[in-house]
C-alpha cells in the first residue's frame, strides 16, 4: 500500500501548485451538493445547528451558496 505522511503530501502539493502556477483559492470548485442524500443534508444541517449553538460558523460552504452553472 502506498504510504505518505500528511506533511509530505502537503509539501508535494505545494510544489505541484507552484509548478502549475496556481495561486489563491479559486481554481477548484466546491461541491455544489446536487447529489446529496437526504441523510447527508440532515447531517450538514445538524452540523450547522451545532456550530450555531457554539456561536461558530460551519467551515464548509452552505449548500445554497455558489452553485456553479452546468455546461452541456
Amino acid at each position, binding site marked *: *500500500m*502506498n*504510504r*505518505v*505522511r*500528511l506533511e509530505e*503530501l*502537503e509539501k*508535494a*502539493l*505545494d510544489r*505541484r*501548485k507552484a509548478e*502549475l*502556477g*496556481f495561486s*489563491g*483559492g*479559486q*481554481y*477548484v*470548485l*466546491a*461541491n*455544489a451538493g*446536487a*447529489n446529496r442524500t437526504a*441523510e*447527508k443534508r*440532515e*447531517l*450538514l*444541517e*445538524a*452540523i450547522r*445547528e*451545532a*456550530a450555531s*449553538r*457554539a456561536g*461558530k460558523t*460551519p*467551515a*464548509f*460552504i452552505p449548500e445554497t451558496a455558489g452553485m*456553479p*452553472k*452546468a*455546461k*452541456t
Partner: protein
Amino acid sequence: MPFRPEFREALTLLATAVQRLQARGLEAPILVGGAAVELFTGGQVTSGDFDFVSASQDQFFAELLTLGFIRPQGPGWLTRSLLHPELGFGVQVVSGQLMDGRADRSRVRLLAIDDSRETRVIACEDLIADRMAQALATRQIREDMRNQAVRLYQLAGSLDDAYLDRRIRTETGDVASLETLREWLANEPRQA
C-alpha cells in the same frame, strides 16, 4: 496553502479511531468523497463531513463516540452519521465496500498523520473516476465535478494512466475515458 487546523485535528481524531479498530483486528475504514478531495487538493475545497467506506460501522462509531462524537439530533433515521460538536464536522459511512467492489483495494493510500496513527484514503485514480461519473450522470455536465476531476489529475502529478483509464471507463459506463479527462484539461481555464 496549508491544511486548515480543523482538518488536521479531524484527521488525527479519525486516525485514532482507525488505530483502535485495527488493534481489535478489524479492517480500517477508507476515506472517500469530499474530504478526500480536500486532502488531494491541499485544502482547496472545504468539506463539511468525512465520508468513509467501512464494513464495521458499528465498531467504528463506537470508537468515535468515545472521542467526543455524538449522534446528530433530529430524525431517527440518521443511522450512518455522527458529528463532532466542538470541531464542527461530521462523519458518515456511505458504503460497506469501496466503489461497490470495483476499485482495486491494493491501491488505497495510507496517510500517516503522525508516527503512530494513520488512515486509509481512496486512490486518486478512483476519486477522479468517481468525480467524472458524477459529472456525467445527468444530461448537463456538472461543472463542480468536472473541475474537481481535472484539478485532482493535475495536482496528483504521477498516476497510473492505464488504471485511471480503466476506472473512468468503468465508472462512466464507457461514456468517458482518460482521453476525455485530457480534453477537459485542455479546455480548463488556468484559474476556475
